């Protein structure tokens, strides 16, 4: 089982760093799945996470100039690692003006993802910084736990408002309440509501637009029959929503959410070539 990759381009490095920073804000520990063509950052919905789950997919070709991997076996050419993305974020933080960044899987005192940064220096030879990030190799028999989540049978799907605005609204609401209600309808309207003993605050967004999903089977009928004015709503932990919004450093190309009434809210964010899905379960 081997993995080595190299980034030479500064723009790619910055972009990769931003992705890692976003992931680091969403999960303390997550799974990194490596395949010959893509990298995935996966968080499964365990109780410890508060029931949230995440699936983030990147094409390695958009970031790495060199990418070689050998999975556990020929017919299972993949590697699953468990790591703390915060470590990776820290390693990349001071590497922004690096000449090259190499990432490889090593076995030092334990399996590690080693990030070797070559920095420019005034001396003849470059300065090298290595970061050994401890990882855990996830054995093949557990790989089924990390399957790609399917799009839930949602009641309403709607494009999100400008994330910066949404973020500042949610941040202020966070001071007043622990939970927030997200509701939306097929008329492009979305409301964010909090309610406490003393105060209730609602922010209304209009003309957001609803993504045209091509569905098969029964689900298509149910969405078409649905009254466009009816709101689908879910009450979620406000901190989880705030974390998701805080992690977005750049406005995504596409951002939408699917609401399953009283069950779950499913966010899909697309940043150029990075595809992020995030699920927040509804509170009881």
């Amino acid at each position, binding site marked *: 089982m081997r993995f*080595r990759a190299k980034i030479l381009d500064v723009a790619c490095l910055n972009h990769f760093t931003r992705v890692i920073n976003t992931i680091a804000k969403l999960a303390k520990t997550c799974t990194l799945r490596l395949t010959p063509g893509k990298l995935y950052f996966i968080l499964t919905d365990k109780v410890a996470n508060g029931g949230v789950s995440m699936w983030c997919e990147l094409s390695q070709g958009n970031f790495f100039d060199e990418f070689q991997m050998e999975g556990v076996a020929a017919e299972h050419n993949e590697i699953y690692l468990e790591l703390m993305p915060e*470590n990776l974020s*820290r390693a990349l933080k001071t590497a922004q003006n690096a000449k090259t960044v190499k990432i490889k899987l090593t076995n*030092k005192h334990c399996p590690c993802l080693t990030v*070797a940064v070559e920095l420019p220096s005034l*001396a003849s*030879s470059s*300065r090298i910084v*290595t970061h050994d990030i*401890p990882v855990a190799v996830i054995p093949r028999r557990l790989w089924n736990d990390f399957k790609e989540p399917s799009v839930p049978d949602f009641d309403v799907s709607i494009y999100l408002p400008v994330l910066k605005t949404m973020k500042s609204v949610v941040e202020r609401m966070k001071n007043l309440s622990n939970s927030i209600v997200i509701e939306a309808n097929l008329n492009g309207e979305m409301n964010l509501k909090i309610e406490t003993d003393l105060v209730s605050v609602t922010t209304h967004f209009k003309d957001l637009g609803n993504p045209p999903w091509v569905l098969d089977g029964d689900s298509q009928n149910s969405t078409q029959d649905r009254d466009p004015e009816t709101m689908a709503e879910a009450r979620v932990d406000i901190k989880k929503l705030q974390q998701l919004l805080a992690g977005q450093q750049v406005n995504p190309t596409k951002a939408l959410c699917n609401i399953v009434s009283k069950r779950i809210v499913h966010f899909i964010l697309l940043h150029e070539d990075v595809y992020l899905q995030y699920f927040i379960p509804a509170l009881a």
Partner: protein
Amino acid sequence: MQTFSHRQVTNPAKHFARRQTPEWDGGGQLAPAPGPTSPGCTVRQRAERLHARSRRKASGCAAMKCVVIGGNVKVLGKAVHALSRIGDELYVEPTENGLSLRAVNSSRSAYACFLFAPLFFQLYEAGGPDAHGELFRCKVLMKTFLAIFRSLPSLEKTVSKCLISLNPRASRLVVQLHYKYGVTKTHNLSFQECELLQAIFDKQLCTSTLCASARVLVDAVVHFPVTLAEVTLGVGPSGKVSLRNYVDEETEPSKTMVTELCLSEDEFQDVRVPQETQVTFCLKEFRGLLSFAESSNLPLSIHFDTPGRPAVFSLEDPLLEVHLVLATLADSNASSQAQTANGACHKCAADEDFAVDDLESYMIAMETTTGEEGAEPPLSPTFPVRCPSPATALEAERSTLASDKDEDEDGAVPGTPPQKKFRSLFFGSVLTQSQARAHPTPSQEVLAEDSEGEC
């Protein structure tokens, strides 16, 4: 020079409050001003002592007066900032060679001294010695002194002059800042008289020396997290200098990220290291000096020796001499552990060119173990160890280390701060040799005796 024989005490705060040993107080006549009131001594007795002392001082002791102008005010401010990273009290001592500002940390493992030559000042009067021939010295709360120099940008822009004066008859240290537009701020600080604070060290006796511009070192430590406590500086074969974060024995190595930076010899102005060596010291205290060095543009020299012996960091200039003495870890386990942990300990990771990246054998070992345990999930280094055998091995190792540490000490007292393995610096005798012989160095580890009998 056998200076560093004392091990760190279990509860440094407790001992610091007690009366100092004769080697400490440079005379044995005066009881030094304690921080908190020493037990067994009434407030009235203490007030009487201080009063008697100030009467002695009042006779024939001239006032200290220093005036700093222009850009030097900011330098003074930066020095105070650097000292504030070390300790909670600022020791002020005017000498013939200049004004010395010193600080020491509570566990006595870091000491810093800034000596400003008389030429640094527009006006410098050290004040005369007292009836005992001693120059006046005092200590003030670092927090208070720092507050005066808190905002460096505003010091630079608006302060034209800084006057520091002390009249022993008065009980205040006066720091007066002259601002633009005729505004003057006068701070009257209360002080405590104190013993001489002088760490015994001799740069000449250190076997290894490195000298670099502050910029190089600042760029080097930026890769380490701000919260990192200790860092290991190593010099390997072919002059490669490495900095690595130090991982405590108590922390599980498989959970901690290890960062290592390698600098080549030519980034340094001077590298005189006769043999491969590694020393571990506190990064937080070093950062304080680094930021001062960066602003002063002076090259920084690092003098060190074998692990356990203190490392001396110095900056020198005709107007200013700065020394930072840090205790280094004496733990030999540290260097050997690091070697096994990071296979390429001496060589930088760059040389290694990915030799160790085949996890095949590890995978096989893991799969066989989990097969035996049945449905139990595999041992993950990032999860706490659940399997009994590795855990006991780990605990056994820890208890051996603990017993090694405890053999000289009383054993950990619950509720006390965690034991640090840094040996505390020896703040040696300023007595003459004969007096020193009369008061032999105690063989116990504490630096200060009980004060019960004293007051």
